[in-house]
């Protein structure tokens, strides 16, 4: 047991540690200029000082609030749209062109417009997040409900089940893995939305931290912002993996 665990992680750990060492070496010895590249040790130090001054906490709090509000709104609306599209042909016909259109459009480019409309506070970022998260959630929810196995529906019908019983006992549980996949996809897109929207104009947030560090050629702080974002993305995606194992164990193994 211990052996398999070790085998599973050895290569990955070695590769990451090796990469960090190489990075440290290149930036200290070869480049040796903090204006171009910060070494991992300098980034860790920057994160430490930013955290100590309370600066980092402020930026994280703002970005987190923007992300959370936008994500929750998008999830609720997205799942509702998905349900609507799966249960009514009219609804699907009405929504489909908009969903397809917006999903294919790099809506992030609308961020400056939203800032113009809603100002540089959190709400313009919330709107960007909604636009980025809404569509994958909608599309996945609809696909999940639509691909419910006919066999299972038939089985329930043979027991005289009503439409709502079929929905709650078969369609909804079998769509759950798809809905979770859509929400998982939304995490990465939502984080990108927050940061890019903040780059376009904001008072605080991790995007703001990154852009002001870039303006000041402060590479360690710039990387600090990026690392915090990466960790947040990895942590949330891993959290979803855990949630999937708990909620939809039948899709695994």
């Amino acid at each position, binding site marked *: 047991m211990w052996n398999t665990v070790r085998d599973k992680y050895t290569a990955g750990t070695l590769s990451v540690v090796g990469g960090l060492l190489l990075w440290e070496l290149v930036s200290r010895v070869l480049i040796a200029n903090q204006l171009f590249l910060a070494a991992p040790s300098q980034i860790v130090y920057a994160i430490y000082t930013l955290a100590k001054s309370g600066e980092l906490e402020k930026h994280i709090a703002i970005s987190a609030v923007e992300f959370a509000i936008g994500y929750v709104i998008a999830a609720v609306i997205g799942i509702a749209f998905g349900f609507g599209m799966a249960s009514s042909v009219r609804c699907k016909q009405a929504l489909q062109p908009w969903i397809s259109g917006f999903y294919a459009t790099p809506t992030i480019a609308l961020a400056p417009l939203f800032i113009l409309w809603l100002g540089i506070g959190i709400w313009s970022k919330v709107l960007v997040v909604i636009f980025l998260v809404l569509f994958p959630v909608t599309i996945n929810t609809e696909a999940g409900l639509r691909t419910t196995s006919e066999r*299972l529906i*038939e089985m329930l019908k043979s*027991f005289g089940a009503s439409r709502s019983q079929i929905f709650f006992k078969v369609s909804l549980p079998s769509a759950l893995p798809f809905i979770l996949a859509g929400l998982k996809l939304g995490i990465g897109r939502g984080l990108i939305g927050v940061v890019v929207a903040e780059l376009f104009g904001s008072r605080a947030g991790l995007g703001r931290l990154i852009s002001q560090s870039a303006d000041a050629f402060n590479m360690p702080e710039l990387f600090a912002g990026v690392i915090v974002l990466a960790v947040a993305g990895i942590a949330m995606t891993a959290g979803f993996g855990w949630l999937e194992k708990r909620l939809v164990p039948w899709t695994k193994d």
Partner: protein
Amino acid sequence: MPRKVEISGLSKWFGELEALRQIDVAVEPGEFISVVGPSGCGKTTFLRMVAGLEPATSGTILIDGQPLRGPGNNRGFVFQNDSLLPWRTVLANALIGPEVAGKVGDRERQRTLDLLKLVGLGGFENYYPRQLSGGMRQRVNLARALAIDPDVLLMDEPFASLDAQTREIMQTELLRIWEQGRKTVLFVTHQIDEAVFLSDRVLVFARRPGRLQENIEIKLPRPRALALKRTPEFIAYVDRIWTMIEHDVRAAVIDEHV
């Protein structure tokens, strides 16, 4: 004594295709009846119509003298593929019938647990379908149909996806379970020996259009053991039915490969 199932003049069209023509069948309570025939003879359609899953184009189906109106709790359907809900335990899957009917009490729960024991799944009630073998999943499928305590059990090639040995075991198991409750059974299969082994009567269907060709009474003693399959009487029945449908089966095979 009233007939359990009485089918008269039953016909089915799928658009331009005549699937079933003028089927007349009467089933006595407690009878075990199999339906065999080449693929495309409409035997599964026939069963689905008795289940109420498919409306008839014309003709009537009476159950205990009552005309059939859609699916109902007097019939339990055992599906070819197990159709188990992967997110439910064995017990929760078997209880779906009572649950749909809105009555899951301690009595139903106990009854279903007893049924799981009867089909040989005692101790497995908290397992998930993915943890079970094909044969075990079909046992759950059967227990689920029995859990609503139906008058008539409708079985659509329930052992078709199992390997040959498991299938033989399941046939004897089914007979053992049937002997205990003596439910009326309509059993669709493409395996002639399976039909002869299980049944009191075998309905032989022909194709194009699907119709009832022959009604053969199987006068073999019960209870039956697997050794019966090696007796000359048994083989004679199988031969007789095979001769009847051989021509049709060949035609169906050629059709499918064109």
